[in-house]
């Protein structure tokens, strides 16, 4: 164990703040690991779900802000469904994502963040999501976020797009919804 990795002091105020703002009952957690044992994506996480809770409890705010876990969580709700203490981890993950963005920190998973942002933008513009537009905008945004273009990925997406188009599974013109304006208003708040 690295010495500089030691945790010196704890900051319990952070946990109280998070619990209050997110409405997640994270103090109820007794670290049983059931969430982690059922989580389908731990293989892609840098911290496991129960570790995130413990990190919040100990007030490790910087490390949480740098964690990819909060972005990699698939919101599959497995952990919340089974947690004996009813800790709503996906909700906590969402809260932490928003906390990171609102603090202006760089998300650990740029691509994921980019996707969500493009997706919302898409809704804002059309009221509904158009998958073809979405893909295009996402390619650009993620390239910007990651500061590189994944050419292979782009080609493979393009190929798939064409195949889908052939089978009538991709439309270029978004269908119109009459509620576009109402949606736009929601975004303005």
């Amino acid at each position, binding site marked *: *164990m690295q010495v500089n*990795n*030691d*945790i*010196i*002091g*704890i900051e*319990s*105020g952070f*946990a*109280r703040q998070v619990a209050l703002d997110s409405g997640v*009952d994270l*103090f*109820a*957690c*007794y*670290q*049983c*690991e*059931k*969430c*982690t*044992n*059922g*989580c389908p994506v*731990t*293989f892609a996480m840098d911290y*496991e779900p*129960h*570790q995130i809770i*413990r*990190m919040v*409890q*100990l007030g490790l705010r910087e490390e949480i802000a740098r964690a990819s876990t909060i972005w990699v969580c698939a919101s599959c709700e*497995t*952990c919340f469904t*089974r*947690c*004996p*203490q*009813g800790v709503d981890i996906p909700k906590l993950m969402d809260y932490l994502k928003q906390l990171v963005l609102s603090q202006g920190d760089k998300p650990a998973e740029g691509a994921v963040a980019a996707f969500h942002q493009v997706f919302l933008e898409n809704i804002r513009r059309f009221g509904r999501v158009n998958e073809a537009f979405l893909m295009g905008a996402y390619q650009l945004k993620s390239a910007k976020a990651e500061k590189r273009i994944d050419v292979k990925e782009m080609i493979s997406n393009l190929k798939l797009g064409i195949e889908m188009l052939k089978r009538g599974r991709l439309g270029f013109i978004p269908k119109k919804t009459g509620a576009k304006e109402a949606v736009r208003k929601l975004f303005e708040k």
Partner: protein
Amino acid sequence: MTNTQTKEPTGAVMVVGGGIGGMQASIDLAESGYLVYLVERKSSIGGRMSQLDKTFPTNDCAMCMLSPRLIGCASHPNINIITLAELIGLEGSTGNLTAHVKKYARYVDEDKCVGCGICAQKCPVNVDDEYNEGLQSRKAIYLQYPQAVPLVYAIDRDHCIYFKKGKCRACEKFCKTNAIDFNQTDEEISLKVGSVILAPGFDLFKAERAQEYGYGRYQNVVTTMEFERFMSATGPSDGHILRPSDRTVPEKVAWIQCVGSRESIRNGREFCSSICCVAATKEAVMATDHHSGLKATIFYIDLRAQGKGFDAYCERAKKQSNVRYVRSMISRVAENPITKDLVLSYQDPETGKKREETFSMVVLSVGLAPSSEAGPLAERLGIDLNPFGFVKTQTGDPMSTSREGVYVCGGFEGPKDIPETVTQASAAAARATLPIASVRGYEITLPSLPPERSLFMRETRIGVFVCCCGTNIAGVVDVEAAAKYARQLPGVVLSDVFLFACSTDSKVRLKELIEEHDLNRVVIASCSPKTHEPLFRATLREAGLNAYLLEMANIRNQCSWVHADAPASATRKAKDLIRMSVKRVALQEPITSKRVPVVPAGLVVGGGLAGLTAALTLADQGFETHVVEQSDHLGGRHIDSPLTLEGFDPAKHLRELIKRVEKHSRVTVHTRAVVEGFAGHVGSFLTSIRKGDGTQVSVRHGTAIIATGAEEYRPDGYLYGRNSHVITQSELNSDIEKQPEIVKSFRSLVMIQCVGSRTEEHPYCSRVCCSQAIANSIRLKNSNPDMDVIVLYRDIRSFGFKELFYKEARKRGVIFVRYEQERPPQVFENEGALKISFLEPSLRRKVILTPDRIVLSAALRPHSMASQIAGIFKVARDDQGFLLEAHVKLRPLDFATDGMFLCGDGHSPKFPEETIAQAAGAAGRAMSILSKDAMYVGPSSQVDPDLCAACMTCVRTCPYHVPFINEDGVSQIDPARCKGCGMCAAECPAQAITVHHYTSEQIEAKIQGLFEKEMPEVKSA
């Protein structure tokens, strides 16, 4: 209501529920001189324990321990067992209650059925057998289990086709005793009782509700109760653990703990079921015992082994049985649909990485719930329940329900293991009889018996009676031939055959024959003496013969039933057995039970919560009581303790007890007093006490209760005693009390659990310190919510409803961090500052803090004076110095020495409610002796002084230290204390000891009987 109050109360008690709790309460009540109605919903008594295989922490066979209780209830003249019955209403007031009981039709006449089971063989209907958790089937006419009491079949109306379709009655046709009675109807009876004890026990969490584990979907996922049945020799696989899917021995079995316990997501399941951690450990150990290759893994959150000896038990499971404990809660069970193997994912404790592992079988440790019948029962009786459906009780009076005159014990009061249940049952018996103590002995009847006929100068006249047991015996053994054969044996003057020897009419006939033929020895060749000897002994006695002139030849259980495929040799063996019995019975002697008068006074050593509770219980029941306390004040160590988690004020409670004790006319208190000498036997002890002023008094008493309590360990290490900011929980208590402002100003505080507990040298859990830490951390958070409170623990043992307080502490922001025994936290000073460093196990990172205080949850140790007391009273202590009960499971309140009882922290660490229950229970046990004028002791051993060589062999051999060398220089055995085991006699080199009723002559007669020359030759059948 005034007129009912002036009315004399009724000296009878109703006990609802015939599990181990109900049975223990019934026996204690009956022994103390009260009439008992034991009301059981099912067709026989026994409860959950009858389903268990072995029991923790001794691995004793559940049935071995249960049988004596079953038979005790069945044969007690003052216990009236009412099965298939429910209490439906209760009127009146304490002391004068009318209980309305609904008795469901059994459709089998209890007086006629002899339990032969022929009906069930003929019954065409198969029904899921709930005794075997549905893993097997039984018939519509059934016996709950082979050893059931009463041993009477019952028809399950819901499944019998006669009740459904109006046809069948096969059972009726084949029943030889005409016991089947389809005309029976449900009836309501009203009984007058003084009080009621509820002991309806518990049910189990429905495992299907924990959908993620696939119970009901996956064949190889079973519950702990089902696993008990698999392990049981009377279970569905004859004691072999087999996978339900393919009936092979599982290689790897996983237990998942806390299924339906400690969770807020499924309604009403927030509490800890308390027993399942150790029950699973037991099952894992027994499973590896059954099949040596079997690998057992237990997945758990906190290992809750807070009972006496439980931690050591779990350690043995790890070391000797290789049971693997993995602290990681399984999220779901996945099944391979082809192999039916089960896949679990968990955090590997070694690497901290998630891994998948395949198991052949998964056992779910399902939580406990109150009996499904208990809710409606409580509602009918108007009794308050807690949010989980268990009876609500108060810490200060844990046996009383919200309704006066109605008491509770066992699983209905909260999750409990067997010793806790037995303890509370004895306590409930003591509590329930307080209001009716004035009428003790009024309701019971003593049978009037004819005088015993003298055998002096009379020839031996033996009668042999061979039972057919319907076809149970006669279907295999040629009973007529056996009887004829018996008639020719020396000494036999009469032999006869009975269709059912134990039926009421046979008993009448037997008495007539004894008188008619002037018989003075009787051999009954029928079933087991274990079940039927009391009955036939009583018959002999009623006929004016001494009860010990009977011998039984077990030609059913040990002959016809086991040799059904070889009738000729069975008949031969039956004759052999009869011949052996005849030979023996001729040598049997009448034995008169020795009468030992009882001194109706009790002695209590220790004046703490336990001692005072026990003393008052005895005194309130009308017995003189002496309390011996070594310090200068009563109250013990709890006299200045803070409120408990549940809000109980021990100090206030104790002050009240002290006030009552001091005023009580029947209690004599000796403070600053020590016991100096002790002699005598049950019913009559003599103790000498040296008082503070140097004077000495001698006290005569019938029983003694030792309640010497415990002390807080003075820690060694963690800078305790060297840095004033390192304190114990008790010291924190007093700081909170005396200097609240300073405490409030702390910014952070760390508690360390298990200091001096659960170590190599002290491998026991102090039980109360987790709750103490929780209570104190809540108090700290209350005084200053911003204080960082960190609790470093090994397992949080907030068992039962205390789990709710654990959650409350967490919700208030107390942070609980686990540490492993191998890596304790480090406490050190750095530039004058107190520091602590520990490994945070979830993140696997070191945390270093600078707390204002470090609080040690120090162990409880036996009172320093306890060893002296144990020495004087010659009672045993365990290797930790705690007082040792006679039997961990079934006699948790008794010492091995008759008439001596124990309670309180001196037995093992305890919460106040447990101490109170145990103290009342110990008093209840003592009462069952004190309430008698005299005790009668059965056959014992006797030394022939002329033969005794004073070699001391017997003195060394006797496990109860009974024989001693008397003034004449020879060994002497006190019949009041001897248990008649005969061990001394077997060792005595001079053959100087006679074991009455099991004399060498009698035993050798049986041996010779088998090979007897003079006996007539027998042609083969």
